[in-house]
């Protein structure tokens, strides 16, 4: 499953980031690394981007970027 498909209110775990170079680096620099828990808080009123909680802070990611992030169900909440 990829992160863009996750529904608001669910918590998932990052497995892999399917990209290279600057975009991957930027996503990982913001704390979205392998094994980290991500809580999907909400989706913007127009359907994109989405708001995540990761490592204790709020991050907004476009769905097209979230589609690069492979996740599995799991985690607390």
């Amino acid at each position, binding site marked *: 499953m990829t992160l863009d498909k996750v529904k608001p209110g669910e918590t998932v775990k990052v497995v892999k980031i399917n990209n290279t*170079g*600057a975009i991957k680096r930027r996503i990982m620099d*913001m704390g979205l690394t392998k094994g980290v828990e991500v809580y999907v808080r909400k989706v913007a*009123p127009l359907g994109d981007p989405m*708001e995540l909680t990761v490592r204790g802070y709020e991050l*907004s990611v476009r769905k097209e970027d979230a589609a690069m992030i492979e996740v599995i169900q799991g985690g607390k909440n």
Partner: protein
Amino acid sequence: MSDIKIALAGNPNSGKTTLFNMLTGSKQYVGNWPGVTVEKKEGMLKGFDNVIIQDLPGIYSLSPYSLEEVITRNYLIDEQPDAILNIVDGTNIERNLYLTTQLIELGIPIVVAVNMMDIVRKTGDKINVENLSKALGCPVVETSALKGDGAMEAARRTVAVANSGENKNIPCHFEGSVEHAIAHIEESIQSIVPKHSVRWYAIKIFERDEKVLEKIKLSPEDNKHIEEHIVECEREMDDDAESIIIGQRYAYIAKLMEKTVKKSNKYADGTVSDKIDRVLTNRVLALPIFFAVMYVVYKISIGTVGDWSVGFMEGLFENIGEFVSGLMEGNVSPVLQGLIVDGAIGGVGSVLTFVPQMIILFLMLAFLEECGYMARVAFIMDRIFRRFGLSGKSFIPMLIGSGCSVPGIMASRTIENERDRRMTIMTTSFIPCGAKMPIVGLIASAVFGGSALIATSAYFLGVAAVIISGVILKKTKAFAGEPAEFVMELPSYHWPTVSGVLRSTWERGWSFIKRAGTIILLSSIAIWFLSSFGFGEEGFGLVEDMNESVLAKLGGSLKWIFTPLGFGNWEAVVATVMGLVAKEEVVNVFGVLSAVGEGAMDILEAGGAEAIEGLKPIGEQFFNGSGLSAYSFLIFNLFCAPCFAAIGAIRREMNNAKWTVGAIVYMTVLAWVSSFVFYNLGLVIRGGAFGINAIIAIVIVVIGAYLLFRPNPYKNEKISIKYGDQ
């Protein structure tokens, strides 16, 4: 004793700016990093006479991919400050420490200031500063920039480590095989790089950081040897080297967090900020609230208060002009009087007219930025704007631009991404501003019997120009590069500080006066000269009649450019040029040059049948009563170079002569092409002959459609960061 240089580094939203202001007071120097629009701030530390604090751009990492990060890296590596003061947001410590671990590797003496401690305490979280200090090997100080606690203490500690050169930094530790590879790299480079930064270079080489590899230039044997180690690690961990480092860095921080941070569950159902956010970005409420906020911003800055302040300033400068005229009458030559009253005072007036309005706008923008709502504006509007190469934050410049392009363009300052910002600057003035409305009204009354459709269509045209420009320009080389990924922090909401809001307002306002002012003043004087001098009966000198001015001659020699647009007469050219001083001038110029006379604006304002009757001569004389010609003129004047004040604002925000000229040329070319296509296709539709111009118009439409719909040829090109390439 020589000067001590302290670099202030930290994440965006870590309170760095507030702290910087607190430490340096008013002794600041604001400029730009060479060649880029990224702001550079320097200041003297209060209470010391030899300590300079260099504020670095807010960044999340020392990667080689963003301009801000490269600026920071180059500064830290090449300028070698005596110490780093790293500001860490205590409420968001995990991600903030990610940068800290990278800064520590540089081997420069460092002090970590854990900021926002007042909020940390309020939430009941505990940060064990001693353990953190032990683990990182450097002093850690608790601060609260908002309350002013600990800031000076942090600065004093940083001066102390700078003086002693003490450096017991403990860099973060990676897993066995990675450390093994890094040790090998360190061995090969230790003779080429400064001793204290060996580890930073080694890790960067392990990450295959292009900028560092270019600088170091390893021998082919070393390179091969090192590459073997890296590949081995990558195979073992099934990931690329860069990701291995990032992953393990965060893993190290997670362990560090266990030892140093205790989270309370006091706000298990969300902090106050979470609750605010649930309302403000709620699926249903977000848009109504957003439009309400925008309405208030608009109403205050452009509506009531803004209108009043512009009117007041205009009146003020008119009075000053009359007063000075009165003093000079008969005492000095009319040339000097004209230069001073119409040229200089008028020019200064046109700079300062916007200042009160801009200050009001900047106050509100600073408030929205500091409290955290601006990031949500981008979040809410991103979906619409990103298709046109704009940012969600471009909404505000466009909205303000419908009142006045000058503050609109200045409002683009809130957009971080340089490409988005440039695109916004280039397109904001397509939205018809308040001063263009008299032109719209004139054309509607003089030719179209006062039809309200003309005004509506002007706004549609403006929005269409923004969209078409966005789509076409984003596929050009100048805007090429990977699409800026939208991974944006949504900072917690908090009350802004009064001093922070005021300071940001002051800095923006002043930079407009200083940098936009010169260009506005000079061009106002130039136009005054052209329009009031000419060859009259007594040779070259001041002329009473605009007919005899240099500008009229110039208009006559340039009218061929506008003949294919349907208004090839010198009066229309002069009106357009005078529109550069202020767009509403177009109405006055047409009045003076026709039978209507000086009261054209009053007639227009009277509206209704009076305006339609009164202004008819203008339509007859300059457009032969042709709707096509008149509307073509309107299109040209809506899109072409904006007034000098807006050009000054563009120059200020682009901070680059080439981009400024490029933007103006683009607008004017778009204006000409749009009018050309409209007029000539209009002629054909009305049953005219199908001539060469119609064919050219169709070709232009085809080329335009191609530019609009072609795939982006630069889509996969890498971002090239041209700053400080060694």
